[in-house]
């Protein structure tokens, strides 16, 4: 069912693509510029993956494996950058530097403006690294430490333990995180364009927005999807080639904590605070700066009302996505077959299709098939759940890999049926994965734009649209309260969920 729904957008794009004149397609694709833009996309993806790993890996280790003071706070702070909309991050970095920027006007010194590959890599890294962090933290928490202890007992140095035992067991999480970030970077347009770096997704946007052309845009979108699916294919090849196991009881062993010592505490917090300042502090400071300068046109009730509307879509989308992801993940991990592999790969289509094309496909099919659903709440929530299914799938799948099948088998042997076993044994074990998945979907649904433009009920004004209808007319100051509201409310919500998730933070 989910698989079939995922194929709809592809079908739509092929349908549109066949309206094309083949010669024009070739002329469009064969330009040297197209190749250059693809190379730029590859360079950007590589940069963002490298830098987000450098941030997320130490962060996840500090939170789950050390006695760092205030780990719970760090855990929430590390997820918060997800709530920052990409263009706000880009505007923040741009607004910070330059002669007329925040720094020069407030403190009297100007930094060179971040732009090009560096600027785009920096901006994207700062708000996508939490995808990797969440995956890694869940993996560290779920990793059976008795394996590491055995390795140590067998005479491995700590370094060997890390490279031979810990790292391979983190691989599924690393790959899942890289995949999500990679696909995001390939499809992102807004922040990259603000940084004046041109990538392949740019051409697609131009086809739609400057040429109002859905036919050639479909060709380009199909190419982008082909690239994305190749990446998905490689990821699953790498992941499925390995075997993971647990030896311990799977529940009772306490996590072994590395003692940091005073110097380590200082170093740990130095690292954490520089990341937090860059990823959260910067955008918040720039927004605050705008808010003090702009007329506070948006009254609090308007912002709260808008937030309620955002919530009414983001919460059910997150739950629906998790509900759809769960059976897909179970199929992939517990019952591998060509069919389950196929469905798992299809699940990424929603995330890989440029969102404007994805939304258009559902405009087309809902008007043809179920016009009564068109531009309803229900359709918007369903399309969000499909579009972001991949985000929920990653953490749930990683959690399942680490949950021991033998415990499930024991429960079955003790007379529990499959449903009872799943509810009483599997579900509690993979709970952090499910929650992480829901948080990811929630946060992205809070800031999503093109799908909301096309499929939200008319008159519906979530924070993201309210903010856009101000930035689009160049009214950055008026947009600031709404951008701030997206960050603050998402962060509060994420903090609330993580606080109540008792397993989080080790």
């Amino acid at each position: 069912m989910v698989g079939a729904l995922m194929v709809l957008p592809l079908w739509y794009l092929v349908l549109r693509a066949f309206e094309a004149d083949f010669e024009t397609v070739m002329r469009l694709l064969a330009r040297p510029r197209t190749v250059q833009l693809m190379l730029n996309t590859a360079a950007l993806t590589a940069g963002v993956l490298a830098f987000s790993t450098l941030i997320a890996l130490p962060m996840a280790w500090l939170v789950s494996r050390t006695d760092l003071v205030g780990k719970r706070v760090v855990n929430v702070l590390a997820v918060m950058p997800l709530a920052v909309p990409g263009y706000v991050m880009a505007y923040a970095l741009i607004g910070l530097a330059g002669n007329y920027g925040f720094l020069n006007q407030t403190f009297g010194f100007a930094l060179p403006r971040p732009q090009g590959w560096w600027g785009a890599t920096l901006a994207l890294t700062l708000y996508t690294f939490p995808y990797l962090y969440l995956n890694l933290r869940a993996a560290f928490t779920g990793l059976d430490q008795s394996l590491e202890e055995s390795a140590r007992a067998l005479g491995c140095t700590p370094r060997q333990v890390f490279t031979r035992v810990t790292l391979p067991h983190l691989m599924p999480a690393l790959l899942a995180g890289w995949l999500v970030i990679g696909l995001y970077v390939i499809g992102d347009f807004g922040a990259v364009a603000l940084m004046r770096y041109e990538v392949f997704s740019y051409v697609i946007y131009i086809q739609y927005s400057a040429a109002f052309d859905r036919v050639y845009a479909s060709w380009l979108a199909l190419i982008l999807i082909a690239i994305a699916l190749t990446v998905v294919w490689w990821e699953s090849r790498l992941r499925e080639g390995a075997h993971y196991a647990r030896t311990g009881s799977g529940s009772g062993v306490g996590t072994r904590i590395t003692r940091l010592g005073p110097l380590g505490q200082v170093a740990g917090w130095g690292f954490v605070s520089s990341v937090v300042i860059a990823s959260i502090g910067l955008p918040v400071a720039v927004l605050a700066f705008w808010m003090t300068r702009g007329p506070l046109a948006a009254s609090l009730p308007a912002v709260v009302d808008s937030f309620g509307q955002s919530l009414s879509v983001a919460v059910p989308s997150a739950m629906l996505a998790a509900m759809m992801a769960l059976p897909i993940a179970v199929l992939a991990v517990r019952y591998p077959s060509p069919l389950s592999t196929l469905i798992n790969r299809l699940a990424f289509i929603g995330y890989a299709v440029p969102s404007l094309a994805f939304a258009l496909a559902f405009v087309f099919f809902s008007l043809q098939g179920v016009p009564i659903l068109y531009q309803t709440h229900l359709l918007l929530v369903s399309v969000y759940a499909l579009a972001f299914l991949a985000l929920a799938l990653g953490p749930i799948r990683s959690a399942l890999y680490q949950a021991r099948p033998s415990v499930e088998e024991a429960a079955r042997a003790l007379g529990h049926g499959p449903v009872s076993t799943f509810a009483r044994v599997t579900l509690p074990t993979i709970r952090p994965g499910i929650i992480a998945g829901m948080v990811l979907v929630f946060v992205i649904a809070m800031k999503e734009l093109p799908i909301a433009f096309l499929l939200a009920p008319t008159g519906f004004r979530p924070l993201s649209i309210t903010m856009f209808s101000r930035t689009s007319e160049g009214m950055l100051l008026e947009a600031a309260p709404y951008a701030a509201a997206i960050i603050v409310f998402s962060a509060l919500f994420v903090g609330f969920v993580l606080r109540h998730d008792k397993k989080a933070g080790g």
Partner: protein
Amino acid sequence: MLLDGFSRRARTLAATAALAIGFGATGTMTAAMAADLTLYSGRGETLVAPIISAFTQETGINVNVRYGGTAELAILLQEEGDRSPADLYWAQDVTALGAITGMFTALPQETLDKVDAVYRDNNGRWVGISGRSRLLAYSPERLAEDELPQTMAELTDARFSGRMALAPTNGSFVGHVNALRVAEGDAFTLEWLQGLAANDPVIVRNNTAGYQAIADGEADIMLTNNYYLGRFLASDPDFPVAQATFTEGDIGNLMMTAGIGVLATSDHADEAVQFIDFLLGPVAQQYFTGNVYEFPVSGSGIVPVAGMGVTFDEAVAAAPEFDLNTLTDLEKREAGLI
């Protein structure tokens, strides 16, 4: 224990979701029941919401608005075709209106007659609502008035190398390039675009980013739209950017317009026309001039705001004679800028 914890969480979440859906649904439901007109607006909410509620107050007709990007909404309308729920489409620029002209119905002559012929479709299917002129924004600190280019063609001069901001994907820029093709021909336009590209421009995402680039000292000059300066100055009177026009009659001073049309599939065409008439009336025209810093397209005696850059009279005096109807051709892939 763990199970209990989980289902409790699930219950709380489910309750939150149910509440949230209820909250959102009541909001949209009441709006949908009372709505008489559905408007797809590519114009931003802060700019147009006050004038829309003034219309509702005056006529009792509710307007249910879908805000979005001008281009995204045009594509949405194309995809919806004759099943579109929209009655009206209000776009930031003429090119977007041109992309879906075929979906509009002809407006009554009385409505069309409220604006000058240059501000409307030849076949009467859309009409301009507020004028926006193309002109130069520049840094008065780094460029003296006598150093400014006299014509748009001069922007390819080597003296502007590396100093010019350019937003090649912006709708107004695209429209302006199409106007140049009409006025000067394809060969000239292509050469001009290649000249711009070779002049090492600072590529920016949009006009706002261009004004900021000039304020930040990264660029000194930009071919852009007039009204942004007013919006910057309104929140920061010291904003270090000034405006100028090219020589009188130069294509660089093109007067463009934001415009609106009624969908042929609308069941409320009369009310929709009533809405357009209201937008062309004195209250709305004064609002667009005084609060949005754009130019009036209809009526007389509209009072501008002083000190917001090039004035309406200056812009009108400098504008070339040009038929906006010719801006429906949308090919612009050659010069490698986009």
